């Protein structure tokens, strides 16, 4: 096994290329790869395809960057099930880009996307599911409805998704890329296994011996991972089980910078947000430093209350 520790800067510049299909881990605003997205925006990206089941802030940041700095960041296509923020509101950048016809997209469901990543992870070209047998998803996606050769009943075949690079945030990893995930597994293992390369950020970077003390806890195995970066608060202002709960104010504040643009308003507020929080800082740690210690502790305490444990 190889030591895969490196800086976020190095990982993004090595593994995210123009035109890549980028698989995004987490679920809505839980364990989204926020720190990785910040670094991608700082370095700039071109003609990406984003693939995810349900996502919130990760695509909202990448797409917001495209709206604020189209010369520096661009997304070509999105394959998704849901882009929104549940209790925190609608995805403003999704509305902006889709309603203006600025990106291609392909609608799937959560299970469709998860099964597509699973097919990719199994090394198979497609997977049968019952999801899109009726309704319009089959009409606006690459779904093929066939008669099952064994039962003769209709079944939907979905193409595997094999991203060029997976962006994943986990609770704990070792230097070789073995990962432990708490709370929802989301589809992180499948995306990592399906992708050609995987960048992992983690709340805790621990010794290999400790990480594998219960080997069945390993959710993502080392061969699937190319870069490991220790980034506490790497999914913030989203939530990460056992570490911190949502900072809903920060999510709503960011959405509030994009909302005026949906109605034809100026990009000034959004540009200012990016200048202050991403382009104006060197690292994700500098962004986290902008939050008050009191707020960060409050979000940690809220989460500690949800999953009470002895220290």
């Amino acid at each position, binding site marked *: 096994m190889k030591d895969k520790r490196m800086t976020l800067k190095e990982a993004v510049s090595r593994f995210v290329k123009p035109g890549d299909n980028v698989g995004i881990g987490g*679920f*809505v*605003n*839980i364990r989204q790869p926020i720190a990785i997205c910040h670094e991608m925006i700082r370095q700039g990206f071109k003609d990406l395809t984003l693939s995810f*089941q*349900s996502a919130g802030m990760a695509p909202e940041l990448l797409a917001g960057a495209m709206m604020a700095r189209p010369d520096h960041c661009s997304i070509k296509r999105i394959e*998704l*099930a*849901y*882009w929104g923020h*549940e*209790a*925190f509101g*609608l995805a403003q950048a*999704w*509305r902006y880009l*889709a*309603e*203006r*016809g600025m990106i291609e997209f392909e*609608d*799937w*469901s*959560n*299970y*469709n996307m*998860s*099964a597509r990543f*699973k097919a990719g992870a199994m090394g198979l070209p497609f997977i049968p*599911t*019952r*999801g*899109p*047998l*009726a*309704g*319009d*998803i089959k*009409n606006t996606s690459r779904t093929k*409805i066939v008669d099952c050769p064994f039962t003769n*009943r*209709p*079944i*939907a075949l979905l193409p595997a998704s094999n991203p060029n690079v997976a962006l994943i945030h986990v609770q704990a990893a070792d230097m070789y890329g073995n990962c432990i995930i708490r*709370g*929802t*597994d*989301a*589809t992180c*293992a*499948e995306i990592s296994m399906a992708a050609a390369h995987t960048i992992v950020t983690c709340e805790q970077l621990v010794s290999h011996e400790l990480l594998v003390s219960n080997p069945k806890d390993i959710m993502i195995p080392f061969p699937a991972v190319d870069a490991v970066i220790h980034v506490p608060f790497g999914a913030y202002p989203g*939530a990460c*089980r*056992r570490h911190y*709960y*949502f900072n809903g104010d920060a999510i709503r504040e960011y959405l509030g910078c994009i909302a005026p643009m949906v109605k034809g308003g100026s990009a000034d507020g959004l540009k200012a947000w990016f200048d202050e929080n991403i382009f104006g800082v060197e690292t994700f740690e500098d962004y986290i430093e902008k939050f008050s210690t009191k707020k960060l502790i409050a979000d940690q305490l809220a*989460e500690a*209350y*949800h*999953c009470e444990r002895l220290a």
Partner: protein
Amino acid sequence: MTVSTDYTAQEIIVVAGAKILEDNKIVFVGTGLPMVASLLAVLTHAPGLIPVFEAGAVGPPLKHGLPISVGDSKTFTGASYVKGLNGAFELTQRGFADFGFIGGAEVDMYGNLNSTMMGDFPAGYGKPKVRLPGSGGASDMAASCERTILIVPHDKKKFNQKLSYVTSPGHLDGSPGARQKAGMQGKGPYRLITTRGIFDFEEKSKRMRILHTFPGETVESIQENTGFELLVAPDVTQFAAPTVEEVRLIREVVDPNGAFVKRAAK
């Protein structure tokens, strides 16, 4: 039981949703008001309800209150079974979910739901008038749960003969055996809860039928606000207004921060 005089449209939906849920059933719960209604049911008549959340939690006791996401940490604490999305949906596709509980933006007379886009389809798919979040897990629940319970705000523009986009298939075109012919499983939409009443889908025609009117509504007023002809059950009754205690539970215990149940403007 004292009847509430200041309940909101969302609060009566939540109370109706909770009452439709049966104790000890496995319910696949979508985001938003279905989560609120499920928690109210657990706190009232259905303490043995087994919620499934699509991010992968099965059967949590929800002791820490209302999840604000279907992947919220609160859905995992104390859960009986914890996986990811594939785990939850495979269990559902295998046929273990008694109910799917989902919301949508637009519905037709056969209980087909739209949560994808508003506008001209298919020509305008790539550039919709209004882009909605997308299916999430709703279309999977619609295809595989034994029965589904739907929530849609009741508005003439949202109750249409033809949807902009069919995200979550219900009874399709209402023809006999349509769901099974398409390869889906389960009996399809069971109840629809709106801001004006509760509906079922008539056994033979699978068409939307008024079952209960909410206080202040009549069969006529509901029909006036619906873009297609509704069937009317032979014994339509009025659904009782929420009690003071139910409204207190929603405001003080279930959703004290107004995450999904918006507070009425004072």
